[in-house]
């Protein structure tokens, strides 16, 4: 299987705080990885490093064939960003643009797509997330769940090879969470390679091929979803019993 992501001995400090203490991790094409762990365990930081939003201090990262360490040339960074889609907890839609404009902005400015073609793309990805009727709405007119689905659609419009999800349902109530998770499940069924940082244990267990449990800046335990039922370490057992 082709490797899409590989982290080799990745270290990251925030000042004196050693957040990532040598992470090794590999993701194959079509694989779905759920990263779980307590707040402060470094799971979001690890995810953000994969999109070069955080610059690592040591080690090496390969994502979709782009290899980088501490530094990266801006030309390579742009290519990396074209291959990777990321969705955040706080949606981060552009409030001054309609749903359609939010989605067509990057295809038009980055891929230099003509307007009509970009609008076709917008309609396609909005259909994928079930929000075609919201094309001309502004973000503030949508519910949190709908905004998050638009954010996913916005990423999909760039045809990413890898999707990263950073606690995308943490700001949503259970019902809205369910509608966002359904969209992610559809993506999964289409074979999208995904890395999710999540607190939704049941969802992780159902969808992920592999679970990564992070603890104090390290990959503490990893394996098939079964490890959530039969944890191999006391830390994961502790985490799971608190989490469910």
């Amino acid at each position, binding site marked *: 299987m082709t490797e899409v992501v590989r982290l080799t001995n990745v270290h990251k400090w925030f000042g004196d705080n050693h957040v990532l203490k040598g992470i090794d991790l590999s993701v194959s094409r079509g694989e779905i990885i759920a990263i779980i762990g307590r707040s402060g365990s470094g799971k979001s930081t690890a995810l953000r490093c994969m999109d070069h939003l955080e610059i690592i201090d040591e080690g090496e990262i390969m994502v979709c064939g782009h290899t980088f360490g501490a530094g990266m040339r801006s030309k390579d960074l742009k290519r990396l*960003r074209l291959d990777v889609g990321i969705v955040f907890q706080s949606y981060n839609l552009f409030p*001054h643009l309609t749903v359609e404009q939010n989605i067509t902005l990057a295809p038009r400015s980055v891929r230099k797509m003509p307007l009509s073609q970009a609008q076709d793309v917008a309609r396609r990805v909005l259909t994928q997330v079930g929000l075609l009727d919201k094309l001309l709405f502004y973000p503030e007119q949508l519910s949190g769940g709908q905004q998050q689905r638009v954010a996913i659609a916005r990423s999909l419009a760039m045809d990413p090879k890898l999707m990263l999800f950073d606690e995308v349902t943490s700001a949503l109530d259970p019902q809205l969470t369910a509608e966002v998770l359904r969209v992610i499940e559809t993506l999964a069924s289409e074979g999208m390679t995904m890395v999710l940082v999540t607190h939704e244990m049941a969802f992780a267990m159902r969808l992920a091929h592999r679970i990564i449990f992070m603890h104090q800046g390290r990959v503490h335990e990893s394996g098939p979803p079964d490890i959530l039922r039969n944890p191999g370490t006391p830390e994961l057992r502790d985490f799971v019993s608190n989490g469910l």
Partner: protein
Amino acid sequence: MNPDQILYLLQGAWGTVLLSVLTFLFAGLLGLCMALMRVSDNRLLRYGASGYIQIIQGTPLLVIMGLCFYGPSVLGLGDTPALFAAVLALTIHSAAFLGEIWRGCIESVPRSQWEAAECLGLNRLQRMFKVILPQAIRIATPSTVGFMVQIVKNTSFASLVIGFAELSYNAKILNNSTFKPFLYFGVAAMLYFIICYPLSWLSLRLERRLTLAGS
């Protein structure tokens, strides 16, 4: 007050409006450059802009007026037309303040908006002009309109140093020949109010709309 005198004051008011509009145009451009330099990645640009802003904010407008009016002839560059000197001085002064107001507005757009735009592959200029500035402009509108009132009033400095025929200057001329300061300066004050009040009103309204939209 005879019709000629009223006309003379109105001509002065027109001078004030002209100075204000020209100043706002040029100070707006220079101020935008300053604001963008202040948030730039380039340290040289950042230091340049903040040096300019600190020096100008610490210099009285009257002094800047003097330098702009007398400076060129002292340096042997010939006489400076009054309108040019006044607009130049007001522009230099106002750009420092507008630059600082707008920098604050740019920085008040959440960091996560930069990040989202960055992750979509937009380069720095695209991020600034397509994502950040449109949002910053909304935030900046009330305070900018409020500052326009300041500019209108500041144009009166041009009467002191440069002798440009704006409202205060013409009121002073009338007073010098008639010795009725209350009458002429009173009418001038009214005319200033007529120019400024719509701006203040607009600024307040915009601010209220922004607070409502933000809540």
